[in-house]
């Protein structure tokens, strides 16, 4: 126990104390710009959120973004992992190339997509125009109907490699005699996939769903760099809402309350995934 003390002290200072302190300040009306007025407000910061239209709008957009992103990531990663599980010439090179998006830092990824989507000089407009798919440059991020999907696309591009690796590990762990037995029973390719491959990939899927859902719910970088919550409120998601409340409005009390709600929602979702996907693992 004595030997653990230094580690415990560090953990206490850098993890336990900040978490506990942020919970504490979530019960106060703390605005840094009003340093002499920090009344205790109890649960008001939390109850105010329940009636806050902007907060629920942000929640809804976060749910939409997460749903679209995680579904796309899981589906694409499944296809790519199935492909990489086959023996073919160039497989190793393809696997290496696949890792490139994963190796790119989030901010660099966001800046890259900002250039791609730019409506005046973006690569996407350039490509579509040269291929005669469009006759004039399109507005991408400025179009509120497209914004969230375009950001989700950039997020998916970055996240697919990791999800693929996690699923590939599950695929590699499936014993080959299961497939042999299925063949003996006369199972078709589709039946082998549905009854052997997919059930065996459940642990991998669970990891992907939990990790990517957590990443999507609290993702910030792309929203900060690509749209700053706009146009209008089209990409005003929960993480952006918390950032604005905490660091622009400098309202640390309500910002902490929102962060706690976000943390609780993330925990709840993770628990749900573990309960459903992990039941028969």
């Amino acid at each position, binding site marked *: 126990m004595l030997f653990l003390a230094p580690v415990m002290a560090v953990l206490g200072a850098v993890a336990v104390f900040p978490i506990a302190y942020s919970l504490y300040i979530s019960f106060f009306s703390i605005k840094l*710009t009003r340093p*002499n007025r920090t009344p205790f407000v109890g649960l008001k910061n939390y109850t105010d959120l329940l009636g806050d239209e902007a907060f629920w709008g942000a929640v809804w957009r976060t749910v939409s973004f997460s749903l679209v992103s995680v579904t796309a990531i899981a589906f694409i990663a499944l296809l790519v992992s199935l492909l990489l599980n086959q023996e073919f010439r160039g497989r190793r090179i393809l696997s290496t190339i696949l890792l490139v998006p994963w190796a790119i830092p989030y901010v660099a990824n966001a800046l890259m997509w900002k250039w791609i989507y730019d409506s005046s000089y973006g690569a996407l407009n350039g490509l579509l125009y040269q291929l005669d798919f469009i006759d004039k440059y399109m507005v991408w991020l400025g179009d509120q109907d497209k914004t969230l999907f375009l950001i989700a696309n950039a997020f998916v591009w970055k996240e697919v490699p990791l999800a693929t690796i996690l699923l590939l590990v599950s695929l590699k762990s499936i014993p080959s005699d299961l497939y042999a037995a299925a063949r003996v029973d006369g199972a078709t390719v589709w039946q082998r996939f549905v009854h052997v491959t997919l059930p065996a990939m459940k642990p991998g899927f669970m990891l992907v769903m939990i990790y990517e859902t957590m990443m999507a719910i609290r993702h910030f970088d792309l929203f900060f760099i690509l749209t700053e919550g*706009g146009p209008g409120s089209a990409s005003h998601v929960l993480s952006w809402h918390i950032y604005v409340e905490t660091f622009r409005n400098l309202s640390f009390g309500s910002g902490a309350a929102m962060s706690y709600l976000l943390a609780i929602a993330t925990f709840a979702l993770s628990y749900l995934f573990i309960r459903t996907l992990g039941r028969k693992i």
Partner: protein
Amino acid sequence: MLKDKTRRLGRRDFLRYSAAGAGALMAPGLVRPAKAETAALTMHTWSAAVDTVQSHLSAFTKETGIPVNYGNSPWAQYREGMVAKFVGGAPLDAMWVSDSWLPEWAEAGWIAPVDEFDSLMKYNAEAEDFCTDSMTYGGRQYGLTYYTDYMAFFYDEAKLKEAGFDAPPETWDELVEQSLVMKEKGIADYPMMLAMAQESWLIEFISTLVYSHGGRLVDDNGMAVMQDPKEGAVEALSWVVDAVNKHEIVSPACVETGELAGLKSFAAGNHAFAMVAKYRLRMLNDPEQSQIAGNVKQAMMPQGPNGSHATVGWMRFHGMSAQAAQDKARAENAAKLIEWFGGKADGAYTFQKLLFLDIGAGFGVKPLFEDPEIRAAYDSYGDVDMIQAQQALARKKDTVTPWFGEWNDTNGSAWQSAILGNVDPAGAVKKSADLWNELKDSY
């Protein structure tokens, strides 16, 4: 013996002689009191013209003997960083302040008024009124100018001539007419460049549009009047909405176009008209940076039906921290530093002139407009009389209050929502006004 006399100084000898020497120096009458060192001041700015600031600081220390610890941080994180410094009690004497933050910082007691220093107040006589207004809150003045500028209207003279017009538009309606002709002739897809992205510049664009429509966002008592159709805001937003959606003279991408991206687009020759900060004129007429260099001219801000050529001006100034103000000697030294930068150094507005010549930053003191070097520099890329005439019509932002930061994001989103067609202009402005009044009541 010889050996003894010439032996090298040993460790013991060194210690003995040192102790004896120190003792002799410490003896009464032999000790010379150390010269009292002047306490260093601490100055923090955002990362602009850093070399110019440092060299001017060195000159200050040489002149006054007061050392200065200088730090800077990027503009994007400056406000939050400074708030953290204030709250954390970091040592600070002088700093750059934006007029947007003045009420917030003054109300929090982080910065102190400087109007008790006659050495600083004497410069008001030569400053533009809106500059002094922008540094004043609650009847007290909080600093001296660092730089000032205003939102200007530029046009590409070549495109205007190509479209068959001899003069730039006087009104926003004329701008629509000229733009439609340009579109018809294929001169520009979107003749007018407006940058309406959610960023710190947006309030300046909005204020300019409202002022030039003869209106205001907030009255003298701090109550929102923007929702009143007679006060210009609804009219101004309606003009933008029509310009984007009906006339298609402004790109629908304006909601994702920031000031810098818009500037580059204008410099690339994509537009005939643009509203950007006046100091951008130098870059726009620089052949190395602009494809329309030599063709960019400034005109008075177009006016709305009941408006004027008014525009918005802004102010960045040198302020004094409250902690410096609490100590008389320290405050006096900080005032000297502020004067060295915001007033005259060696009998001239040296720093403002240096800033102008270095990065083209505007100045808020009228005599510099008569400076031959400055006139020559302006003449190389602009019309100094036009620049001065428009500056005389600049007004401070009427929304600068302690709750400005909380309101600004919602206001920007409301204007964007109207441009996107989600809500009508009156509804968007009303939403913004409602939040304004709610915040005002809460403070």
